[in-house]
């Protein structure tokens, strides 16, 4: 109840400020710097203004990567959000089984991303992987290294496996915060399961679901490691999502200016979408 007032508190925050500066602000500024200059090696730079941005926005390669990215992100959101909510609703509310479920749910989130990619790569191999071999054995012709459709199927399945848990955990936390009296009142009011979901659970979960959508949107928009390890963007360019394209430009072709401009364009797009989505959903709240 009694707090001591002094300025020492600021020193406590200082390390965080330093870390944020080192890992966010400085790299960002470097990228901005690259995006407006041309280099031919030897650390010689020439100012180019918006040339790289114009080039990127006009390039068909970028349009194709962006298109793939949007399809990928929308697909995984459309699967993960409802699936996460359904699993959360089905989980026990308390007791030992609730804890067991929570631990099981948390497992995929704890595995390093490159390991996830490697795991699925092996898992899906048509000759030795359980998934790949199994599908072929069942009579489906499946080879993700050769067929674009199979490659898409595999990375989406992998992402759903990897990240649905996050949505489950958030939705579960939202559900846990609902007072039991609401369920009791609804039962006595004769509400159907659907009514309970529509009028109690969904409104009470709304805020965490918004967070879930934002997190999944941002993460999936920047996804790199898993598809890179799994398919390397192939076959052809069929699974070359934005980040993979970006790395190809930066490291494969050493086109730093283009890569930097692409980075900034992604960054602004992510920011814009999040901002629009957040304001829109929160505004609906006021009505």
């Amino acid at each position, binding site marked *: *109840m*009694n*707090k*001591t*007032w002094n300025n020492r508190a600021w020193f406590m925050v200082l390390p965080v400020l330093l870390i944020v500066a080192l890992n966010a602000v400085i790299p960002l500024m470097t990228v901005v710097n690259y995006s407006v200059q041309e280099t031919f090696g030897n650390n010689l730079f020439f100012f180019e203004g918006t040339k790289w941005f114009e080039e990127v926005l006009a390039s068909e390669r970028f349009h194709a990567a962006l298109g793939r990215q949007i399809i990928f992100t929308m697909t995984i959101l459309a699967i993960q959000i409802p699936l996460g909510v359904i699993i959360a609703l089905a989980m026990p509310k308390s007791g030992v089984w609730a804890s067991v479920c929570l631990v099981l749910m948390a497992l995929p989130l704890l595995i390093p991303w490159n390991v996830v990619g490697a795991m699925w790569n092996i898992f899906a191999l048509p000759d030795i992987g359980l998934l790949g071999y199994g599908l072929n054995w069942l009579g489906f012709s499946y080879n993700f290294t050769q067929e674009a459709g199979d490659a898409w199927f595999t990375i989406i399945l992998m992402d759903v496996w990897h990240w649905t848990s996050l949505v489950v955990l958030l939705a579960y936390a939202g559900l846990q915060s609902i007072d039991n009296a609401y369920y009791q009142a609804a039962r006595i009011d004769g509400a159907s399961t659907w009514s309970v979901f529509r009028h109690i659970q969904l409104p009470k979960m709304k805020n965490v679901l918004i967070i879930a959508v934002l997190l999944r949107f941002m993460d999936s928009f920047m996804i790199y490691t898993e598809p890179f390890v799994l398919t390397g963007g192939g076959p052809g360019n069929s699974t070359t999502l934005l980040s993979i394209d970006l790395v190809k430009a930066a490291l494969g072709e050493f086109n730093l200016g283009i890569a930097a401009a692409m980075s900034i364009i992604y960054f602004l797009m992510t920011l814009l979408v999040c901002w629009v989505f957040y304001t829109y959903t929160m505004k609906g709240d006021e009505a």
Partner: protein
Amino acid sequence: MSTLELRSVTKVAGGETHIDAVSMTLEAGSLNVLLGPTLAGKTTLMRLMAGLEKPTAGNVIADGRDVTGEPVQKRNVAMVYQQFINYPAMSVYENIASPLRVAGADAATIEREVKKAAELLRLTPYLDRRPLNLSGGQQQRTALARAMVKKAGLVLLDEPLANLDYKLREELRAELPRIFAESGAIFVYATTEPTEALLLGGNTATLDRGRVTQFGRTVDVFRAPVDIVTAQTFSDPPMNTVAAVKQGDRLALNTGVSMPLRAPGLADGPLIVGFRPHHLAPSQTAPDAVPMAARVIVTEITGSESFVHLAAGEERWTMLTHGVHDLDPGTELTVWLEPRHLLLFDPSGRSVASAAHAARAA
């Protein structure tokens, strides 16, 4: 702290006036009740007194020194809330000792002060227990004890008994004045319940939409409210009112009843008349009591008393009377009222003295 003075303290937030030019002086060793409905501004006023909020205008003076901008940490203030706020992982002993430890008191002092506070609040048998294993009443006693050992000059209690069972509330309420008297600090106690204010005694400030409508000795505010809002705030069950016209020595109530009124200083004209439910009676109480016709809406019986909700003309009144009167809705009834119990207000709601006072002055 020996005095705390508020000078035209105003708080505006988001275009809304939460506290409107409140001026009051609180003396050391006094108990001051802030009485008003939810959202009347009780909590905001306390936060301003504590320094948890900065007034938009006006000054807060402690012991003659202007402390308006000073944050709460620099003032010597303790606060107790409606929720039982204790450190759940500490024993009751450690909870009570915590302000002393923060202040760097030595072990002997801590031991002595904690024992004393525990004794005063009847917590001695529970010192080794964790707060969450105690009853609500004991948890709130722990919070009170912690506020007491802090030896704060100003102790603010924000509806501290609201979350307790009725009977526990009654017990703790009876003990509080004794506990307060021992400490010598300035106590400020917020409540929504008129009965609680009366049981605590001390001084009462009635609040209405951010304004202090009256501040004085509790019984005085109850008996001689300065305006109709104060009278309504400080009345449980709600005060009965009726419009009336004074003409010479007579008062004609809107309900058609006329009664004698000796108030020589008072000009003729329209008035609003108020009277408390326990002053209405189902039988003649005094030779000058005036009979009035009323119809029963519904009756509530407490065992020793009855609350009879009445319709008299357009007015809705309540009669609080001893004994059990189980009257069916719709029953026509004669009720009696002594003119000396009338409170008179001008049409704007300002008191023009109670009939008793007016008669005495004559």
